[in-house]
């Protein structure tokens, strides 16, 4: 039967919660990078230049078709051979941000394409510049249909942060590994990791739906 030790659980809990903050920071920073870079990728695929569109398209496909853990290793271990020496945190954020930006760019692409052609024509008729057309008219309308997908990837990036433990980023998984290794007990730390992830992921999904409804209302688009 299970040999669950509550005293050990409470002893390690502060350390795990501390690491949870790092996990949240990693997910938040990585997601921030992905949100911005994803938009850049999505917009770059809409420029009149065929070459730019094709190159970006191929990059996005490449990133989406290779494992995240490989990309993390690549940035961290192959970088130094080219003189790019990065700390685990920086390398991890670049890798995970880049990875998710490829997915988010696809979400944005769908959202941007869902904006009716008439909106573009109205912008031309009002003589708005391309930049203002995007940022004041098109992107605000592309946002609501993108939010569900963006929310999924927010939870996704959060659940993928344990991969950063492979290069020694001190997040939740790495803390659990370290505790397990030093106490020769893995049941409590890993169980707690699972519970912490669950306790954050579940409400997050609900909050995202609430946020989505709020944005739609705010933009007068319900």
């Amino acid at each position, binding site marked *: 039967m299970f040999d669950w030790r509550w005293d050990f659980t409470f002893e390690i809990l502060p350390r795990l919660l501390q690491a949870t903050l790092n996990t949240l920071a990693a997910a938040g920073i990585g997601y921030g990078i992905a949100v911005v870079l994803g938009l850049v990728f999505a917009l770059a695929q809409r420029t009149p230049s065929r070459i730019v569109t094709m190159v970006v398209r191929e990059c996005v496909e490449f990133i989406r078709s290779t494992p995240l853990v490989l990309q993390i290793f690549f940035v961290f271990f192959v970088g130094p051979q080219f003189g790019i020496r990065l700390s685990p945190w920086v390398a991890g954020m670049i890798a995970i941000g880049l990875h998710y930006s490829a997915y988010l760019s696809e979400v944005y692409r769908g959202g941007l394409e869902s904006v009716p052609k008439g909106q573009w024509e109205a912008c031309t008729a009002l*003589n708005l510049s391309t930049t203002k057309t995007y940022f004041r008219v098109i992107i605000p309308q592309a946002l609501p249909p993108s939010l569900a997908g963006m929310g999924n990837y927010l939870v996704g990036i959060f659940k993928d942060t344990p991969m950063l433990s492979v290069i020694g980023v001190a997040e939740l998984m790495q803390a659990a590994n370290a505790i397990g290794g030093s106490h020769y007990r893995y049941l409590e730390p890993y169980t707690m990791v699972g519970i912490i992830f669950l306790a954050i992921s579940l409400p997050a999904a609900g909050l995202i739906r609430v946020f989505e409804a709020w944005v739609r209302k705010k933009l007068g688009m319900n």
Partner: protein
Amino acid sequence: MEDMSQYPLELSGPDVPMVRFMNVTKSYGALTVLDNLNLDVSEGEMVTVIGPSGSGKTTVLRMLMTLETINGGVIYVDGQPLTHMAKNGVLVPADAKYLRRARSSIGMCFQHFNLFPHMTALQNCMEGPVQVLGLPKAEARDRSEELLSMVGMIDKKDQHPSRLSGGQQQRVAIARALAMRPKVMLFDEVTSALDPEVIGEVTGVIRKLVAEHNLTMLMVTHQMGFARDISDRVCFFYQGKIEEQGPPEGLFGNPQRERTQQFLSAVKAAD
């Protein structure tokens, strides 16, 4: 290649039209939509374009708004080329920067209104004046509120388009276009998507514009009675060409060409 030296770099003289289509051709692949079109619209004139669907009438407006590229010929607005720019003494196709400046004197209203759904009626009207003309917000607001009053929509200025009826949306769209102070206004089937009972509120606004402002207007419509009432001139388009044109009394009352007669009697039978 077309010989561009036949086109003047700008129009001059006493009778420069507000809009001139000179040998304008537009085709999509093998399909020719506009065939060597020549059309002048004088300042302050209201010209209505009628014709069967596929006759190229909407294309005329869309080319003038630079929503379509041109395959041949040149369009001039207020004496200056719109679709082309002068380079080394000849006209070459306009680049994006030139187009932006050139089309600033043109405004357009669409069949499906195309209001910005995430902005209120007032914000829709203020967007262009603030973001494009660089007007201070207070001034843009005054101008927009004045125009919303003119179209009878001031009470709904803080509503989003989704809360407005089709007729109300179209009136806001007219105010939004006018807020840019265009010299030429284009109305592209602005009543076609409306329920019959609200058509009058939109045509009423256009009537008011014709009566009180010296705007140059080009209108594509299926409302023959309306066209007859307010136009200075009516152009009947058939297969990418102007088949017949003239004052409304003449064109509607005594059409000369067989195609025109057929079209008008078909429209009459449908009513």
